[in-house]
């Protein structure tokens, strides 16, 4: 079941969606959500750009995406109807706030006639509910709230109605409302609770809604779950990495959508020894993280597209200094400012190649909201063990989307502890670029260590001593050593796993990062149609898992779906000489499972 709430940015749609999610999670359904809000904080009320939406997919089986098309659309005003109706399949349920369909709002949304009356919605199951009137009516006896506040509670009325329709318990929302407003404005809390209850009661007593839907709990692996968004999971992953490594966490960041909430989240965990530094710009944010790393901390910087570009020179410095650094790129649609709230996978080639000189940097990508937790730990592990900057890629869809997360047992998380140099490593001398034979990592000797005083910098280093060197052969050697060190990480990461149930597929779908959900859902559909297809999904994009080439060559055709114009595709073709084909969409939306499925089927049927 896929439900979408859509309304004006001021209508509280994100809150409504989040609460419906919370109620649904407690019932034990599997869920996946996708908030979709405008970049403008307050676009003009009632306007098309001001529409904010929240889509929720829940089911009694495990699901992989927030869903392509909703079954139910709740539209709070004409603009919300106009921008969202195209996604609602014919026959879908449409619940609208009839009160909002006045002349002014219709005009702002560009309607010349009222769609509620002109028959244009005849193919949908239309429910015209005067949400505003009903809410204000229900609250007329509540004292201490302004008429405006009463009117604004209509989102809770809508939530009450939807909760009844789908048999969701409203108690958690009541608790939430009391906790949110209770202390300062108990009367406001009560007004919202009352609106919620009135909506629920409205569902029960009106005959408009003939059926209620019951969605049974999903069969999920046993354990304790919570709902989590990607950015929250990423923040938790960084805190976990700090605990697991025993190093204090330092985050340098400059606010930018959709990465800011990581900074905000981490800023509230000072009791974990987390230092957050809101810098003057992204360059300073990355620089401060490098400074903290030099001092023996886990230095991290978080940003998105335009900010990541600014960090490039500093990342190059970290490559040269061979110090740990985790750079999180929460990708958004570009180029330039692009579409800040919308996801894209457009930064892969930039993080791999967007630096001067031969400047190898490992890249790790998260595949789902909760996976951001593990991906963050993995990025930190590689950074610390190999003394290198590591890019961690997420995107706007993972960042704000949520899913139930089977909570890991803390004692089973990987040990990523590292050791500092404490003693000279060459007789009496300390050579800061004398490498570990196995990892090729150099020793990390933070200031404060007696006897190991040394100088590092961005100028080319002599092998072993780290002294400045312009020697041609030395530069050649050092360039190769840095490349070798990063390439060698392939031996230290899992092989690429292939999901190919009976091993008879001839087509492989290869994805990376945030497209996991839609691709996996598409693969299921294709298999349900009786066709055979294999799926592999990359977490490590530099280096690739050591068996990647072998996996690719095992299949006759390889399809690479991406939210870009073919960046992994380009890498796969050049690295492995495989004639893969792409499926590429850059709409600022997650890939649609149905469309990916069609692309896979077309390839299979063509064979």
């Amino acid at each position, binding site marked *: 079941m896929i439900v979408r709430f859509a309304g004006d940015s001021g209508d509280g749609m994100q809150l409504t969606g989040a609460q419906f999610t919370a109620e649904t999670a407690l019932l034990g359904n599997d869920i996946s959500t996708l908030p979709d809000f405008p970049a403008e904080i307050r676009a003009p009320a009632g306007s098309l750009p001001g529409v904010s939406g929240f889509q929720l997919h829940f089911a009694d089986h495990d699901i992989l995406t927030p869903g392509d098309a909703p079954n139910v659309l709740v539209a709070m005003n004409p603009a919300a109807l106009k921008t969202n109706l195209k996604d609602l399949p014919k026959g879908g349920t449409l619940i609208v706030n009839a009160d909002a369909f006045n002349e002014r709002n219709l005009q702002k949304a560009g309607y010349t006639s009222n769609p509620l009356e002109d028959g244009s919605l005849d193919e949908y199951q239309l429910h015209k509910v005067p949400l505003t009137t009903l809410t204000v009516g229900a609250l007329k006896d509540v004292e201490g709230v302004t008429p405006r506040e009463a009117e604004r509670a209509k989102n809770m009325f809508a939530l009450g109605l939807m909760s009844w329709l789908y048999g969701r318990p409203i108690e958690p929302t009541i608790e939430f409302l009391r906790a949110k407003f209770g202390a300062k404005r108990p009367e406001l809390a009560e007004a919202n609770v009352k609106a919620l209850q009135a909506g629920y009661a409205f569902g029960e007593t009106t005959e408009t809604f003939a059926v209620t839907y019951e969605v049974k709990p999903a069969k999920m692996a046993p354990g304790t779950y919570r*709902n989590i968004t990607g950015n929250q999971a990423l923040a938790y992953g960084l805190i976990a990495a700090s605990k697991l490594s025993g190093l204090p966490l330092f985050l340098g960041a400059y606010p930018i959508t959709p990465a800011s909430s990581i900074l905000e989240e981490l800023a509230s965990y*000072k*009791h974990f*020894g987390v230092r957050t530094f809101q810098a003057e710009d992204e360059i*300073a944010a990355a620089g401060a993280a490098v*400074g903290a790393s030099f001092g023996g901390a886990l230095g991290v910087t978080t940003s998105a597209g335009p900010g990541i570009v600014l960090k490039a020179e500093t990342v190059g410095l970290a490559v040269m200094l061979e110090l740990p650094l985790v750079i999180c790129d929460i990708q958004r649609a570009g180029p330039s400012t692009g579409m800040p709230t919308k996801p894209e996978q457009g930064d892969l080639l930039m993080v791999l190649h967007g630096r001067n000189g031969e400047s190898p940097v490992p890249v790790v990508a998260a595949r789902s909201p909760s996976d951001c937790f593990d991906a963050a730990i993995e990025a930190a592990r590689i950074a610390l063990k190999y003394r290198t900057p590591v890019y961690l890629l997420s995107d706007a869809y993972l960042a704000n989307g949520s899913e139930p997360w089977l909570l890991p047992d803390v004692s089973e998380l990987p040990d990523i502890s590292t050791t500092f140099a404490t003693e000279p490593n060459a007789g009496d001398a300390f050579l800061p670029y004398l490498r570990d034979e196995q990892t090729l990592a150099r020793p990390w000797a933070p200031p404060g260590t007696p006897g190991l005083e040394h100088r590092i910098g961005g100028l080319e280093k002599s092998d072993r001593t780290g002294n400045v060197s312009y020697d041609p052969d030395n530069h050649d050697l050092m360039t190769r050593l840095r490349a070798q060190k990063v390439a060698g990480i392939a031996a230290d990461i899992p092989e690429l796993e292939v999901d190919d149930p009976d091993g008879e597929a001839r087509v492989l779908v290869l994805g990376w990062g945030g497209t996991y959900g839609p691709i996996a859902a598409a693969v299921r559909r294709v298999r349900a149609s009786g066709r055979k297809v294999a799926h592999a999904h990359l977490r490590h994009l530099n280096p690739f898992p050591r068996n990647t080439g072998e996996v690719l060559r095992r299949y006759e055709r390889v399809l690479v779906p991406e939210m870009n114009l073919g960046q992994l595709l380009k890498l796969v073709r050049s690295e492995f000489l495989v004639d893969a084909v792409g499926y590429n969409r850059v709409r600022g939306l997650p890939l649609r499972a149905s469309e990916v499925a069609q692309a896979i089927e077309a390839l299979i049927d063509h064979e």
Partner: protein
Amino acid sequence: MSDANGNGHGRLTLTAKDFRTDQEVRWCPGCGDYAILAALQSFMPELGIPRERIVFISGIGCAARFPYYMNTYGMHSIHGRAPAIATGLATTRPDLSVWVVTGDGDALSIGGNHLIHALRRNVNLKILLFNNRIYGLTKGQYSPTSELGKVTKSTPMGSLDWPFNPLSLAIGAEATFVARAIDTDKAGMAEVLRAAAEHRGSAFVEILQNCPIFNDDAWAFVRDDKEGVNRIVLRHGEPIRWGKDGEKALRQLPDGTIEACGADEDGVLVHDETHEEPSLAFALSRVTQATHGGTPVGVFRNVSRPTYDEMMADQLRVAEERRGKGDLAELLHSGETWVVS
């Protein structure tokens, strides 16, 4: 143990030699940077801080080569970013004595943003700006401190940029410690460095440095001023007098500006580096050779304000007191959870 500001008890018996490295110093013959290096190497032992707890961080430029020659921890980073990098280090490691070495281009052009923000935050850094009024390393283009009309390779008809006054800029950026020294004035520099080292928070020191190759004698009027007729040496609590026989003085007008006057005239200004209001130090920073016939050196401003690293450490401590030491399992299980059996 001594703290990072050098208030140690002098148990260490280091000498200038202990601060030299085995790297060949690569500045041009006659470069003012040599004198500054020698002055710092002989001053450092006085701090009483063990070498391993001293860190020099620089950007890019001739001046920025400095860390390679100091036998402490050091980082030669990227152009303009040293204050930002040092901020990350000083905030996570309040036990260290962190020094930034930068040039006029490094600090005021490409790194201007980081400089002003480090100063306003009052991060515990000592920032030494080697001002030669030129881009040395890139071979002689004009810099943000070059005078208007400066003819260089990139400005054959003269530069069109009005220059920065580094001290005015620092004071405007809410700096808590602002001073000026001259590369060849070893004693004066040691005095200023001592005060900077003792200051908790960011200390900004402009060092007038000669680049004999691309901008020779830019500071000749104070540098080669053997008789001291052009140096206005600022001493806290003393009337500001200078000249051959101390016959000249400074006084402040009702509008706040400063003018030169005779030493025996009324209203001679008594220097107060600790004045809370930055306007006095700012007015002093406007006193120049061109406008007043003398160049002030010494400490202009020295006030105390909580430092960034201390305040951050405090927040961490308070958070832990209030919420207990962070527990990972508890964090993961926070919020609504449900159990599937």
